[in-house]
């Protein structure tokens, strides 16, 4: 909670300083790498060349020498800080240093390049993947949440996911890995479980998913609950892993055999991909591009964490200019496409939050039986919410269903087209939905043979 308030404070401070920049000295501030600082990946520090720290606690202290000669004096900066505090709704804590390093180098803003589509960008780094693997690790979920939230604001914005590696290894292997990671991220945003299933049969043995990836996902699930798997992530199948798979299978209405068969893995992936708020709207354009070691962030041939990354560009408009194919088919070294996109990045995509817990009281639950009173076990069902979104579930062995996160008037229907009607044994209870007729109309249907 405190971290979130601090993030807001930083955002507000940045905004306030942006105001200052606009008022007094355009071009004074360099583009700040805000999310990286806010997530704690780096200290709360916005780096820039030729700079000195500008500190502000409850009040600001010093300003760079060459700034003090400018119209922005201490008073102006103090006003900015006060404004920031008001906008953030928090007081910047006394005794806690918020260090903002600003670039004192005056520069002229370049006019927008009409040949390059502007974008905002998010990045996954080396910490979000295991070596040689494409599974986005649980810490990557807030970044997905941020991307999805941004994309949902205007689904017509095309997304481009660009995978990179460092320079260690063959060009071919690195291209494959960067492609895997870009594809895996795209699949996550679309909740395309099938795309991830292919990684379990990856032709490159070192890139293949297995028990280790199962354990990683099992240890993160169920979101907000006690993890299915609490053992070491060692990639070794054993009793703990089997037990955790059984828990998953029981929860999903599958045969609880503790085996990581395809059906179980698909269910595992589906549950992992169901992380709240990480899905883009259906129909959102997502392209991927594998760059391998072609566009290094840090120019070194050694292992480098900064070079192992996946960029997600959310472009303002379609088509993307220059075209991703220009990079894919271009000559390397010498390709300028990626650098052109980077140069026109307007700012970062804000990182989303952690998995929110289900809201209290927002659970739709009940029981479904057949006419003879037998519980309707293992029946898949869907709840359609007023906003057009859907949530799913499957009845358990007793015919019970429980769908979390349901708000407002929701419509329940069974996937297999079975009709629902009020149970005459419990008169007066609300019929949630009726397929194929009125509440009473469908109740009299009986089996009919095809002529």
């Amino acid at each position, binding site marked *: 909670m405190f971290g979130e308030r601090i993030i807001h404070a930083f955002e507000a401070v940045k905004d306030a300083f942006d105001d200052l920049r606009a008022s007094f000295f355009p071009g004074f501030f360099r583009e700040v790498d805000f999310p990286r600082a806010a997530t704690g990946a780096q200290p709360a520090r916005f780096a820039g060349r030729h700079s000195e720290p500008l500190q502000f606690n409850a009040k600001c202290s010093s300003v760079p020498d060459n700034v003090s000669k400018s119209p922005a004096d201490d008073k102006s900066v103090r006003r900015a800080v006060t404004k920031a505090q008001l906008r953030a709704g928090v007081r910047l804590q006394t005794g806690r240093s918020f260090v903002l390093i600003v670039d004192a180098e005056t520069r002229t803003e370049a006019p927008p390049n009409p040949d390059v589509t502007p974008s905002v960008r998010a990045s996954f780094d080396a910490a979000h993947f295991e070596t040689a693997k494409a599974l986005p690790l649980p810490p990557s979920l807030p970044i997905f949440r941020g991307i999805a939230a941004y994309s949902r604001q205007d689904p017509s914005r095309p997304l481009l996911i660009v995978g990179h590696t460092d320079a260690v290894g063959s060009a071919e292997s690195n291209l494959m890995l960067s492609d895997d990671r870009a594809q895996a991220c795209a699949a996550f945003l679309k909740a395309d479980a099938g795309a991830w299933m292919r990684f379990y049969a990856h032709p490159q043995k070192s890139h293949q998913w297995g028990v280790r990836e199962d354990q990683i996902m099992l240890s993160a699930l169920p979101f907000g609950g006690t993890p299915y798997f609490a053992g070491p992530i060692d990639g070794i199948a054993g009793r703990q892993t089997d037990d955790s798979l059984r828990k998953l299978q029981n929860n999903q209405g599958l045969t609880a055999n503790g085996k990581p068969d395809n059906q179980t893995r698909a269910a595992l992936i589906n549950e992992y991909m169901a992380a709240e708020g990480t899905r883009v709207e259906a129909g959102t354009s997502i392209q991927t591009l594998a760059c391998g070691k072609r566009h290094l962030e840090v120019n070194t041939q050694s292992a480098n964490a900064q070079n192992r990354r996946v960029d997600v560009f959310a472009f303002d408009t379609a088509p993307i200019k220059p075209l991703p194919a220009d990079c894919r088919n271009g000559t390397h070294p010498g390709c300028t496409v990626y650098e052109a996109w980077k140069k026109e990045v307007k700012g970062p995509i804000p990182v989303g939050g952690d998995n929110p817990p289900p809201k209290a009281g927002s659970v739709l639950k009940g029981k479904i039986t057949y006419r003879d009173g037998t519980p309707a076990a293992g029946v898949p069902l869907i709840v359609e919410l007023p906003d057009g979104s859907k949530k799913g579930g499957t009845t358990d062995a007793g015919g019970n269903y429980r769908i979390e996160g349901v708000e407002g008037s929701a419509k329940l229907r069974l996937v297999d087209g079975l009709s629902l009607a009020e149970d005459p044994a419990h008169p007066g209870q609300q019929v949630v939905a009726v397929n194929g007729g009125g509440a009473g109309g469908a109740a009299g*249907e009986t089996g009919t043979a095809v002529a």
Partner: protein
Amino acid sequence: MPNDLIALGTSALVLIKFPDAPPADPALKSALFAVDSHANYKDGLIIAQVDPTDIPTLRKAGAEVFVIDANSNDYIVNTTDLSDSERVAYIDERLARAKDDLLVASVKSGGGGAA
């Protein structure tokens, strides 16, 4: 308050893909053998007619089941006047929708559990 409901059903027209190997459980195995198959469709799918209440059991036995029409009579009414290609398009559209629905339903939002 829980919503207690009754599921109603008739004979459903489905596309079914049988598992590569039969299940060990004799009850599940016999459920697969009892399926009233009509014709091969494509991609290993078979057109069949089943009691809707048997579908969860068939899935448990490892079969993939996609309901084209929950009531076989509806299928006949809906497709009687269609040409062969239109009938295939009809089935494909229903198949795609069934797959989408199953994907949504398989994403756990609580799933089963005591109410």
